[in-house]
């Protein structure tokens, strides 16, 4: 079986994307607390929801990146 090699540059990029997703999910949580006037401690207690939303956003980003990559490849072949 062939080893998969992930470069440190790629790894850093993915960690950065996940971190951005986590920040976005946290902002959604903060906005929810403000809109629904719920206690501020929910920023910590609802961390489970934040992590799930982080993953959902990350997979959406992966999907978008995959589509962009496919389109790019199509253009490269044509040219």
């Amino acid at each position, binding site marked *: 079986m062939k080893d998969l090699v992930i470069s440190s540059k790629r790894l850093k990029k993915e960690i950065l994307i996940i971190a951005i997703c986590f920040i976005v999910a946290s902002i959604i949580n903060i906005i*929810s*607390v403000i809109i*629904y006037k*719920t206690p501020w401690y*929910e920023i910590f207690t*609802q961390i489970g*929801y*934040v992590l799930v*939303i982080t993953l959902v956003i990350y997979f959406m980003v992966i999907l978008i990146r995959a589509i962009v990559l496919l389109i790019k490849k199509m253009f490269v072949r044509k040219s």
Partner: protein
Amino acid sequence: MLNKKPKQVDTSLRQFIKDLGYISGGAALLATTPWLQSFTPDKAKEIKSEKARIGFIGTGSRGQYSIHAVLAIPHAEIIALCDNYAPNLQTASELCPKAKTYTDYRKMLESSDIDGVIISTPLYLHAPMTLDALAAGKHVYCEKAMALTMDQCKSVYDAYQNTDKVLYFCMQRMFDEKYIKGMQMIHSGLIGDIVGERCHWFRNNDWRRPLPSPALERQINWRLYREYSGGLMTELASHQLEVCCWAMQKVPESVIGVGDIVNWKDGREVYDSVNLVYRYNNGVKINYESLISNKFNGMEDQILGNKGTMNLATGIYCFEEEANVKKSGIEQLINQIGNKIYASVPAAGPSWRPETKEKFTPYNILEGEFQVNDGLSMVGALKDGSDEILSSFCQACITGEKGKNIVEEAYLATMLCHLGNQSISEQKKITFPEEYKIPYMKFS
């Protein structure tokens, strides 16, 4: 089923009324429950060490339940027992060895030693026995419902108007602490204006008793035959309809209902499934349902207000504004997004979306632990007010003071049951007949 050991019950009316908060808020309590006026702590002192001399007519399962309760009442003694079914009379006699036994209740009524009688017989015997006992100068306590027919109910009510004797019907919810406190809360406006009432009683049993001989089918399983019983309406709904009127402080003016024998097709004549809608003059309705082939929903008496709901049977209330308050901000956001997605389902139009029951914060009507009746027992539940109403009756046998509104509440509840049965059998809406209205009833 029946517990043969004497129950350890608190039969002190003084304590009962103290527990209800009479001392701190007597006026409010008595406005909600005027029948307790005869049983204030001061009046309880009047009876001192006197004992009411009680005779039992009917010593079946419910009769024996009441015998156990009366044996625990310090101001009562059982001096006579009557039944035409020997095994029950024998069992009762073993519980009260000093009591004289009879097989004919008329003979028993001739005894001048008896102050009051407790009637626990099939429904069709309630009216004739009650009328005979009142005529014989006895105080009377009779199981619900009041009578088998509307005419009989009116006869009993009229007889009560012309006697100085005490008459009780076992509408035990009127003496159930959680119902009394719950009613105080309702009448103080806690749940806002009453906008609906929902009561149901579900069981899963055939309502039959074991027969020593097939010849005794009608005598023992009298509940199943129209000649003797009003079925689910008089046996179960009578309690709940009384509660609804008590909460609403008026009487429904009409009823429409349906009833069928859905499951227990064993030769019985009474319905095993009924659904009825009673309507008050302001449009508020009682939705009543009873089914004895599924027990999922149990027994509940729900009073629905525009600010909250009082579930008297479970002893719990909750507020409309607190629905879903326990959800976090992010959960509410997800819910809202979900609702918007469902709301745009093109097949059903924008107004459709699943509206599942919200979560409410429950509050107990009573502090501490309390008894909740699951509605499954065919004899009676512990701490459902039965002990207190029996104790009140025994006290009334000594003082001779009538219980305010007790007969009137039993009359209106029983009448509503019969009107419900009439609506079912005639398959049409029935309006409360003028000839059966009594001054106590408020329709508007």
